[in-house]
């Protein structure tokens, strides 16, 4: 079964995949990887996608890219990027943290907006990207902020990600099995903890205390730009795919052995979110 077989072919939006371009931006002697998804339609707005935390990135990648393509086929120019020390961007993960990744997002926002400053800018964050996006939005960067599955705080997100470490260690000798709180204690003692191939440093853990929705949501009163913040509504299938949460909603009772989803048809969720963005742009006085 392929995704295309589920879709309504005669209502298929145009594809601009052939226009996609990948390249690097320079930042503090590192290379910041980005992919640009131009649109062939009249430009509604620019959407800067702020991706999730390093250990979630590979598992959300396919859906994240498909969302970028969906937006491009509906009149939005999209930019997505990798934080320094992660994925295609250069640098060692352990040398960076939430502050540098926030700077990466700022750098990309500036570069993206320079392409035509009059066009509205939307920041869309997933997971950790939502926290970083909110921080930037509070400084008056971007006209619209859209968030998907934001954690309450960066610390809560890290604590949640430690479950991957526990799962991996389960098959290792018993001496290496620890609880999440024991790993946290290690970090607080100044030790580095490896989680899914990335070395978490004590600095990353202590920095995570500063990043949270409540603190960042105070919008700078001196900012004159009209801004709208949207809480993206996700259905069960999208939450399962983008957050790894809950059982597979496509599994039918009494069906064959369950298979895992890699590329489910999220058109319904994409349509709703795209509609939210269009309404926000109208409210801002755009198209």
């Amino acid at each position, binding site marked *: *079964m*392929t*995704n*295309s077989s*589920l879709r309504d072919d005669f209502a298929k939006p145009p594809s601009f*995949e*052939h226009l*996609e*371009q*990948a*390249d*690097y931006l320079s930042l503090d002697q590192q*290379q910041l*990887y980005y*992919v640009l998804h131009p649109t062939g339609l009249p430009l509604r707005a620019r959407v800067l996608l702020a991706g999730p935390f*390093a*250990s979630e*990135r*590979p598992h959300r*990648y*396919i859906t994240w*890219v498909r969302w970028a*393509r969906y937006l491009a086929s509906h009149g939005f120019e999209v930019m997505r990027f990798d934080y320094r020390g*992660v*994925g*295609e961007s*250069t640098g060692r*993960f352990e040398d960076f943290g939430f502050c540098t990744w926030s700077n990466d997002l700022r750098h990309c926002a500036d570069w993206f907006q320079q392409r035509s400053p009059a066009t509205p800018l939307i920041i869309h964050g997933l997971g950790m990207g939502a926290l970083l996006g909110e921080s930037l939005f509070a400084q008056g960067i971007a006209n619209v902020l859209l968030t998907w599955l934001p954690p309450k705080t960066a610390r809560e997100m890290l604590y949640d990600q430690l479950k991957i470490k526990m799962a*991996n*260690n389960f*098959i*290792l*000798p018993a001496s*290496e099995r620890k609880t999440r709180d024991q790993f946290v204690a290690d970090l607080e003692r100044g030790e580095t903890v*490896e989680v*899914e*191939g*990335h070395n978490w440093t004590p600095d990353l853990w202590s920095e995570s205390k500063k990043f949270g929705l409540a603190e960042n949501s105070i919008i700078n009163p001196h900012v004159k730009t009209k801004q709208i913040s949207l809480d993206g509504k996700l259905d069960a299938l999208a939450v399962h795919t983008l957050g790894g949460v809950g059982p597979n909603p*496509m599994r039918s009772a009494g*069906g*064959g*052995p369950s*298979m*895992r*989803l*890699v*590329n*489910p*048809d999220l058109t319904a969720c994409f349509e709703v979110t795209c509609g939210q963005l269009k309404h926000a742009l109208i409210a801002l006085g755009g198209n």
Partner: protein
Amino acid sequence: MRKALQLDILGYRLFGTLHDSSAIAQPRAVRRTGVLLLSFGQQPRSWVGDLGSSIADRLDARGYPTFRFDMPGLGDSPGEIPVYLEELWRDILLGIHEAPLHALCEELAHRYSLKGLVVGGFCGGAVTALYSVNARSPLMLGLVMLEPEMALVRTNTPLVRASHAPLTVDAYQESSELVRKRFISLASWSRLLSGKADYKFWLKLWYGLLDYGARKLKTFGSLKKVLPEETNLRMLNSWLLARRLRIPTLVVSVGSPNRSKYYRAYGLEPGVAEIKSRLQWVEIPNTTHAMLTGGAKDAVAENIERWLSDTFPLTSAGIS
């Protein structure tokens, strides 16, 4: 230094990354040996835990231009893929990426004036890498396979119909481990004695054991090695071809009793080098299939670096 690449190959637009600090896009007079790394299954080309990009950085630092590419529909490369993971894996294991890989190798060798390529991959990517020997191209200089998958994946589609498939090697190992755990578990015994046992589990296990026994009996006395039902024969043929052609090969796998049993079930000898056919097999202990925990991320890269510099040594001018 990395460079983002987009190449049009056989009607696909493939996105990739080149690690080449010494000469990004600079034509060279002497042809070098390049390395091409493929991701496993559905993962983007940096792999889980950025293992792929970390290996590529280290090989680049050693002087080997290293490429990583997303196959069609994966990572940044456009293309259609199935809805279900198991169907995607099955397609990959049966060689859906073989043709784009051949064309990609030729394009890279031509565009970057390479002597040829050492092709590597992880899990399903290792199987795709292995299929590159089928073209018998002189550009294919060596193979690096991390945790190669020997079995076809169960799906609900007719190709390998799960409901009629016999117990696989993986499933058998999982079941026997579960039996061992249940045997020493107080809770399991109390469930059995109170009539709350998981009868479905026991029935499935007995069916699997009977099926396994019946197949063993059927081939009793035969000299021919009996392969598990789910064996990817196409992949095994490519493996034998690579051995016959004496293509320098490095296999890296998890060094655990279960994983060793898994490979032995397919007639292979994990951890044992075959000097005659130029095969090296390294086992990394105390880690998982993703090869990240327990220091495996560094160990994998070190082993590949060492094997590459022994097999394709650089000259004093930095040419391999």
